[in-house]
């Protein structure tokens, strides 16, 4: 088992999974928050843009989005988030394109999680914010969003867990993460196929289980008591 892990540099593969999760998660959080504010805003156009984003992205398979970032954005439209000629040009490029795809896809779910977080805030708070004269941006920044994030910890945690597992799709454009490592390992050592599967599967259990536990711990601790 240990010999397998060393031979195929599994640590590097899972480190790639973690990096994809980390940067993808930050990207998704940023885009998702913006889209959520759009969807909650009083301006109909912004509202429409936010709704369109969520509807379109949520109904598109992630595989398609990831493949599209490579073959469509880079291959056809020439969007190149890496410097040509530098060493590791292709791996860096694919890594960044995969992060872009993961962030864009999960932002739609972050937006929905935040909206469900907003739903946990009593109506009276928004009314109170209005009655003391706060404008929409002010009440968003000072009253609604801070509480929405706390109320949305559970669904946000679920998005993070899903994101961790979804990083495997990045293998579609050749990012060397855990699922690609598994593919290679099975191809070279088909005799130990089942233990390879178990090692990778347990790796994901180890990555996702603590997140789940931390999330449920914090969601009960940080939830605003009412």
């Amino acid at each position: 088992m240990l010999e397998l892990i060393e031979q195929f540099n599994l640590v590097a593969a899972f480190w790639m999974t973690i990096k994809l999760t980390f940067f993808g998660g930050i990207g998704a959080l940023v885009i998702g928050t913006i889209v959520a504010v759009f969807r909650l805003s009083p301006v109909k156009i912004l509202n429409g843009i936010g709704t369109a984003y969520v509807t379109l992205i949520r109904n598109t398979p992630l595989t398609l989005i990831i493949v599209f970032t490579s073959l469509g954005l880079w291959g056809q439209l020439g969007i190149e988030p890496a410097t040509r000629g530098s060493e590791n040009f292709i791996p860096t490029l694919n890594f960044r394109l995969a992060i872009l795809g993961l962030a864009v896809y999960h932002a739609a779910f972050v937006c929905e999680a935040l909206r469900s977080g907003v739903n946990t805030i009593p109506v009276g708070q928004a009314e109170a914010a209005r009655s003391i004269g706060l404008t929409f941006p002010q009440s968003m920044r000072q009253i609604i969003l801070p509480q929405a994030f706390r109320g949305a910890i559970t669904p946000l945690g679920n998005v993070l867990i899903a994101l961790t597992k979804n990083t495997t799709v990045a293998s579609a454009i050749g990012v060397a993460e855990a699922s690609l490592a598994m593919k290679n390992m099975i191809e070279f050592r088909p005799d130990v196929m089942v233990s390879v599967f178990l090692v990778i599967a347990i790796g994901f259990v180890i990555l996702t289980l603590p997140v789940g536990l931390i999330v449920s711990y914090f969601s009960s601790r940080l939830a605003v008591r009412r």
Partner: protein
Amino acid sequence: MSSQVLFDAPGPKARVRHRIIAVLGILALLAVLYWVYGRMDQRNQWEADRWTPFLRWTTWDTYVLPGLFETLRAAALAIVISMVLALGLAMGRMSDIAPLRWAVGVFVEFFRAVPVLIMMIFTAFFLSRNDFTPTELNPLIATVTGLVLYNSAVLCEVIRNGVSSLPSGQREAGLSIGLTPSQTRRTILVPQALTAMLPTLVSQIIVITKDSALGYIILYPELLTMAGRQLGSKNGNILQAYIFVAVMFIVINYGISKIAEAVEARQRRKGRTAGPVGSSEVLDQPSTAGGPDLKANTQLGGGGG
């Protein structure tokens, strides 16, 4: 909290401001679209040759329809098998026999934590090594197996969640007329849970349809493989082919989500359920998701209050 209370009915000043923001928003959107248009124009992506293949019957005949058929076949098989399996798992997970409950618990938690793609790749390799299935069926079986293992675990939790959201009187009534606990579950609780969670179950179909596109990675000839990869590389219109596939997926899944909404509205109107109507919160999870805290999630989402 509905978003209407977040802001006052706009007065004259606010209306002007909103109009300015709206105009800026439209301008920004147009700028982005124009940039994309220009970028595509530079690379001659608007040439008619690249778009007309989708109007030809042969394209549909050789690529789109077979791909669509395979996507729907994998999704339909996965939905039916995982529903049946989920019912069995849910019964096991609520059973009075402790070892059975634990075994099912481990199964469910394990397959919810492992990415669907990992299971698909493993099954594909496993089947190609051991020749007990016809080679041409292997990608289909691998895709369906991956989808079933994950989704049956998720649906099991959905059903269990539905049962626990029923009023406790339902179970007590069953027991008091002399049914055993397992009979009560089978004849009273689970059927009601299924009705209550119907919208969630329908929206899980979207997740399954979407995830069937993972078959692309193990060379299953589904919609993305056929109409995207193969058609695109044959006609040299990769970009257009992927846009076309995206539109098809969006139309299919949007249709299903409308059905889920209609089912939910109908249940609300008729008041047919004993428990609260299950929220479509599972829909709000990315595919291949399913956190460990589905219960809290559903409670939080509520009916969207």
